[in-house]
């Protein structure tokens, strides 16, 4: 509740300044959805909408000890500007993290950034003129959408399936773009535990993607925030490691393995690209926080950083399992969802007659929230899907949240059945979802089920 009476300037009198705003500010996404998302932050809402790591398990005494040491040994440096590319000590930590995923990097090819998000911004700033094409996945990271829009990029989205981005469709699209005389500037992908899709690009597709980049001399932006958060299966090589540093720009971050609050990420890129990005970063913020770079350096020097990552893996694995279990229990038979081997998200797709933006309004009545699928597309698709986060809530909250969503979905499925004269849906039978069936279903999850709707309508018309 607010009882404040601070003098507020009338700077929010939008109309008075409208004539001064740049064209790119006019590219805005659905205001209705933004308003809905703002409601997900109410305290009583179980939010499966965010992408938040669980920072509560980080030991407070470790944090205090690290900060004390910085105060004792490097106070002035922590409070001072640093080099645009970042401190060498931070670069050293980054090299260690990349090494843990099988990458060797020349520390001179690194740029420390203010979160991974800044890498997306700098890559766009460096490569994109208004109208230039960016190729992204469908669905893509919702947080990249406003960045792409603000550079007035023309985004072309390529379908995912259970093996990640469909490279055959990518090549067809690249051919088509070439025929149309439009050259894409870069391909944006999250190969491991994709946000929001939850799927991982297979090894053959990784190999082919890197080949395609070389053949066509195209840059790839590999966004890999979750690579180390694998709960099952064998790690796959990153695109960066396969490419040899020629056409892949690598985006890493400490957000998911240490803390998003320290706002530290990085780019590893071919030197000419990195130099331009460095200039872009100078213009944006001169340098990333000296204080948090020193924090990371102290943290890495003080013990094995992998132990904390391993503890997160344990926590998140159990939460993922709780969510998958709850989905099997509470979601209707018509729904399908991905089975992520790592990361933070599950992508669930409902029958196409359910609009998840509208469903969110209903779900908020039940005090539960998710991200409507449309947020992950730039072309209005995704209307029947949703992104569910399992890292930010404990098992009980996940179970209860999924139960509440399942309840409103079941209501809508039954209502649709009544409206079309079809029999209402039977409750799901848990044991029916054997592993083999899951893989088959996955193929349908990621291709939005527009085609199924056509057949359903045809049936109901008979």
């Amino acid at each position, binding site marked *: 509740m607010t*009882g404040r009476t601070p003098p507020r300037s009338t700077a*929010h009198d939008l*109309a008075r300044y409208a004539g001064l705003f740049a064209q790119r500010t006019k590219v805005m996404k659905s205001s*209705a959805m933004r308003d809905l998302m703002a*409601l997900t932050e109410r305290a009583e809402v179980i939010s499966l909408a965010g992408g938040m790591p669980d920072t509560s398990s980080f030991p407070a005494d470790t944090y205090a000890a690290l900060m004390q040491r910085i105060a004792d040994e490097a106070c002035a440096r922590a409070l001072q500007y640093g080099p645009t590319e970042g401190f060498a000590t931070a670069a050293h930590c980054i090299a260690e993290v990349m090494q843990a995923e099988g990458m060797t990097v020349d520390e001179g090819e690194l740029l420390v950034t203010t979160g991974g998000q800044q890498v997306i911004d700098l890559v766009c700033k460096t490569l994109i003129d208004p109208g230039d094409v960016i190729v992204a996945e469908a669905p893509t990271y919702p947080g990249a959408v406003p960045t792409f829009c603000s550079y007035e990029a023309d985004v072309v989205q390529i379908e995912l399936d259970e093996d990640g981005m469909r490279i055959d469709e990518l090549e067809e699209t690249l051919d088509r773009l070439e025929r149309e005389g439009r050259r894409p500037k870069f391909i944006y992908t999250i190969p491991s535990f994709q946000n929001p899709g939850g799927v991982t690009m297979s090894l053959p597709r990784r190999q082919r993607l890197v080949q395609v980049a070389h053949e066509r001399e195209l840059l790839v932006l590999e966004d890999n925030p979750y690579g180390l958060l694998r709960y099952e299966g064998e790690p796959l090589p990153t695109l960066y490691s396969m490419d040899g540093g020629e056409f892949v720009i690598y985006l890493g971050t400490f957000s998911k393995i240490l803390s998003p609050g320290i706002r530290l990420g990085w780019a590893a890129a071919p030197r000419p690209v990195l130099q331009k990005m460095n200039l872009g970063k100078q213009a944006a913020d001169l340098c990333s926080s000296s204080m948090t770079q020193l924090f990371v350096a102290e943290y890495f020097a003080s013990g094995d950083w992998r132990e904390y990552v391993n503890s997160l893996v344990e926590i998140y694995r159990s939460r993922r399992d709780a969510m998958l279990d709850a989905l099997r229990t509470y979601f209707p038979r018509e729904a399908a969802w991905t089975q992520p081997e790592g990361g933070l998200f599950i992508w669930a797709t409902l029958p196409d007659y359910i609009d998840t933006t509208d469903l969110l309004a209903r779900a908020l009545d039940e005090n539960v929230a998710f991200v409507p699928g449309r947020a992950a597309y730039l072309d209005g698709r995704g209307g029947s899907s949703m992104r569910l986060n399992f890292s930010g809530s404990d098992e009980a909250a996940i179970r209860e949240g999924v139960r509440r969503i399942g309840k409103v979905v079941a209501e809508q499925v039954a209502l649709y059945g009544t409206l079309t004269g079809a029999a209402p849906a039977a409750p799901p039978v848990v044991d029916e979802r054997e592993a083999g069936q899951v893989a088959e279903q996955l193929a349908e999850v990621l291709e939005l089920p527009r085609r199924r709707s056509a057949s359903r309508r045809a049936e109901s018309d008979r």
Partner: protein
Amino acid sequence: MSTVAVLQGGRSLERQVSLKSGARVEDALQRLGHRAVAIDVGSDLVAQLTELAPDAVFVALHGRDGEDGTIQELLEVLGLPYTGSGVAACIRCWDKVLTKHLLRDAGIPTPDFHAFSETAFRELGAATALPAIESQLEFPLVVKPAAQGSALGIKFAATAADVPAAIVSAFSYDRKVLLERYVAGRDLAVGIVEEDGVPRALPVVEAVAEGRDFYDFEARYEIGRTRFECPAELPAGVAERTQELAAEAYRALGCAGFARVDLMLREDGELFVLEANSVPGLTETSLLPQAADAAGIPFDALVERILAMALARATA
């Protein structure tokens, strides 16, 4: 100088818009020399109002609670004068089905419609009547929740196959849905502000969608995809007719203080009233303040006038 509580925020789907309206009203009240106290409406509302004991309450709360009569009822109980329409008018405007019945009874043209509760579909087999409804109303149809202040949940059904999903979406917001004949034409809005107890229609505003296909039917409710023209360029006499009809609707619904009436101008020149909003947006981009400005009533003067009417009712 008066102490004025500005009710805003709340937990409706229009919370964000309401916070913007409220902040702007608060600024205006302060510039006018009043003591404005913002209240983000929640479970301690009554306690806060009791403690503050304001001279008047400015309702800048959109959507559920603020526009459906709930807050107004509470303010009646507390004996606090408040801005805008009373309980009954709020109820009449909030429920679009009730609005349309009242308009029709008053001889004010509104697009043909049918409305059903969820119970009608779930328990009374209303679904079997859908084909009959569809043939009466003809396609395309607009399907919307009976009560929802913003454009959320409004769907366009080009064919019978689109109707069930549209109904499911509309039920996400309310227990009653409205199926309405689509009127192709120009999208108009008229703000009404009373002057000496007489509703005065402000210049007509037109919402011009960027694009004309069905997808844009939904998109046109989104900022950035719609351009507003005020005053709208209309053929001779049409603006006057639109204003008269809006004022008629305002009276038929029993609104007080101020309100916004939305209309469609069909290609053949016929006008239809779609709905009225008892607490219209007061943000920088909202239609009523823009229209007031075009009529030579700057925002501060608008706020002062709305407040004065509330205070006058208290002393009456």
